[in-house]
């Protein structure tokens, strides 16, 4: 298993380099000269030249890229052009809320999706199955912001059930109510795909010999479904949930923007709108690395769940 993980790490290395290069480009190919942006519109030519020298903008690109990687490894992502704070500090403040939101969304979506998918598979061809599948196709087709708008409009504004702007604090410190609507928004996007995938996976397993054997042994149907069918169906479902990580990440960016959730996604969008390139670069890098890590984690989990993978 160790070898598997090392191999997987090596494979994701080029991807990581790609991420870094894109973020580096972000600092390079900006339409305006960063030195001029920092110096301001009325700066003298010497000031601009001095800043350019300080930033190392006069050196060749490959060397700048190598230096950039060095800086990133030391955790130095530069300073925000707007707030003049260290980008790494801003990221440290925003990464927590983003993880909180994603976990919250997953925690809502995975159990509901698994239950609906299993139910649809077991009741295959009945009205229950059709209803659940119609529901999940609708879910897959729904823009994240549509769900968010409806939740804000009704559960937030009209019925006043939960706050809908900002984050009042960490979960353990009275922040739970403010997490509810954003997590619901993000989670509801995932329920549809998870339910669909679970249904297919469970259906496949239900036809397997060991399920027939379990039934023939006289096990109760719930035991057969939960312990034999669902347990084995989880393997493809876990990978496919991993594939939904892109969904999750994109959804998080939109959700954070809608609910003024102080996460990395909102930081990135705000930075791009205000041409704050260092912050945008840092935020995009963190999001991309988060995405790579989720995929890596899923792969490792896959090896753990399905011992057959190790041998191949």
């Amino acid at each position, binding site marked *: 298993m160790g070898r598997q993980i090392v191999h997987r790490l090596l494979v994701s290395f080029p991807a990581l380099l790609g991420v870094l290069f894109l973020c580096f480009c972000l600092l390079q190919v900006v339409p305006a000269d960063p030195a001029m942006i920092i110096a301001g519109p009325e700066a003298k030519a010497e000031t601009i030249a001095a800043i350019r020298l300080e930033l190392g903008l006069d050196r060749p690109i490959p060397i700048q890229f190598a230096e950039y990687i060095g800086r990133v490894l030391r955790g130095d992502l530069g300073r925000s052009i707007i707030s003049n704070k260290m980008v790494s500090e801003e990221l440290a403040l925003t990464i927590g809320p983003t993880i909180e939101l994603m976990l919250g969304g997953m925690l809502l979506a995975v159990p509901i999706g698994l239950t609906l998918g299993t139910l649809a598979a077991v009741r295959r061809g009945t009205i229950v199955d059709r209803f659940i599948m119609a529901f999940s196709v609708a879910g897959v087709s729904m823009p994240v912001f*549509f769900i968010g708008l409806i939740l804000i409009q009704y559960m937030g504004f009209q019925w006043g059930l939960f706050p809908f702007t900002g984050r009042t604090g960490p979960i353990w410190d009275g922040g739970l109510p403010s997490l509810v609507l954003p997590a619901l928004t993000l989670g509801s996007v995932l329920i549809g795909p998870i339910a669909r995938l679970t249904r297919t996976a469970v259906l496949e397993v239900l036809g397997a010999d060991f399920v027939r054997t379990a039934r023939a042994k006289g096990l109760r149907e719930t035991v057969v479904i939960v312990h034999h069918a669902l347990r084995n169906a989880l393997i493809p479902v876990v990978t496919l949930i991993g594939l939904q990580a892109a969904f999750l990440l994109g959804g998080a960016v939109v959700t954070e923007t809608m609910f003024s959730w102080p996460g990395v996604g909102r930081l990135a969008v705000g930075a791009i709108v205000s041409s704050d390139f260092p912050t945008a670069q840092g935020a995009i890098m963190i999001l991309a690395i988060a995405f790579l890590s989720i995929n890596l984690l899923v792969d490792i989990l896959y090896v753990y769940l399905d011992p057959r993978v190790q041998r191949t």
Partner: protein
Amino acid sequence: MSTETLDTVSPAEETGLLSRSGVLRRLMRDKVAAVAGLSLTLIVLAAVFAPVVAPYDPYLTDLTKVMQPPSAEHWFGTDNTGRDILSRVLFGTRNTLMLGLIGVIIGGFLGGVLGILAAYYPRADGWIMRLVDVMLAFPAILIGLAVAAIFGAGLTAVVIALVVATVPDVARVARGSAVGVMGQEFMEAGRAVGVSDRTLIWRYLTLNCISTIFVFLTLRFGQIILIGSALGFLGMGAQPPTAELGMMAAQGRDFLFMAPHIATIPSFAIFVIVLAANLLGDAFRDVLDPRLQQ
């Protein structure tokens, strides 16, 4: 033996997309698919003929008719500057659909070429698939954000994001399908009688993979529209006053509590388009390529 006689037995004609008889008939037998297909056709027609169909100028502001709810005069109401929302939705659909189509077509072409070349030239395979892996490391929204940050927000940023979002998945599907075709006997036979690489790749390989790629693209189309409109919603795409559904929803968000229809109607329009596309994609898959079913 000339290549012409071989070409006539090239199996592309049997399995090719267009020559499959009864595809349309089989699609129509599925009621859901028929309704979805009809809706999508109507939506596309309405979008194409938006300048003719739209009752008002989508950019004409009328400050005496601000934020009106739906009425006989304005079916979908008016927005915060008194513009007719129905007209804006029609023009918005046009832009949103166009973005999705351009993304899928360019992305599908590039992805298809990469996948097929990877299957045909084993030596290029590793490199191409590694490139694809790197592309997969970027969720589309992130690409959109990065491109918008570099070149500025706009339709180009969205198109690039959608293309990058399409290419790697299509390349994988195309490669998978092409590897299967490569193992067929007619490939070996073609090579044995000295058919050129170009003909082998195009007439033997590509024509046999195209229906799989096409089905996959229809399945992806809904997702691509969703990504495009999400980028529009984030302000990375079309800039005001251009009507684009995602951006319209974002603008309406500021007036959600006074006039919810400004934001919800464009959002609902996106939902309908994507739903129709998804249902039709599913039906296409069932009819044309049951192997993709998963």
